[in-house]
């Protein structure tokens, strides 16, 4: 079969690009743990306050500089309301909602997830720079949606 010279060039370019994208994705999955969430945690959204770990929301130190932030989102706020961690801390967020669908976004980081009632969602971030990090809801959840926020202080 005859293939035009220019056609060979663009086919090579396209296939090489696909190979590079997939290789980078594959390498990052293992080197940086960037993978789709695994596991599926559910709970009764009407019993969030009685269900572990949400019966004890807050910042728990799970290792040297590693914290687990157990949080609930509700109309219109987050529990615990304010958190403080030292610079360089890695925080694993475990979040659920006790009423409607909320958002959980920390601008300037890669954390941006939905908080769905009945589901437990996870995200992690290492806070290398000191400052005040805003946590905000980006899913319209009611009349005071724009007031729904909390802060993480890193110092």
């Amino acid at each position, binding site marked *: 079969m005859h293939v*035009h010279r*220019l056609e060979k060039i*663009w086919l090579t370019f*396209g296939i090489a*690009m696909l190979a590079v*994208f997939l290789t*980078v994705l594959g390498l990052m999955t293992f080197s940086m743990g960037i993978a789709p969430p695994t596991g599926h945690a559910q709970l009764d959204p009407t019993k969030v306050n009685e269900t572990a770990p949400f019966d004890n929301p807050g910042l728990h130190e799970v290792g040297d500089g590693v914290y687990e932030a157990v949080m609930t989102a509700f109309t219109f706020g987050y529990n615990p309301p304010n958190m403080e961690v030292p610079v360089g801390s890695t925080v694993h967020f475990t979040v659920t909602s006790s009423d409607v669908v909320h958002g959980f976004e920390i601008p300037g980081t*890669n954390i941006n997830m939905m908080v769905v009632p009945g589901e437990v969602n996870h995200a992690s971030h290492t806070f290398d720079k000191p400052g005040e990090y805003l946590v905000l809801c980006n899913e319209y959840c009611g009349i005071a949606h724009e007031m729904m926020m909390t802060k993480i202080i890193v110092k």
Partner: protein
Amino acid sequence: MATEAKTPSKTNPATEPANEPANEPSLKGTFASVMLLGGFILASWLGAFILFMVKN
């Protein structure tokens, strides 16, 4: 009819070298469009990747 039959046809495969078809279409425009689209996809991918790495 007789004169037509004697005229050698340009597209006769028997008289053409197999790797150089004489009536090959010009694909320069197609090539430019494909490369522009490919460049756009590559730039978008790199943009998203760099943003992700900076925010991580």
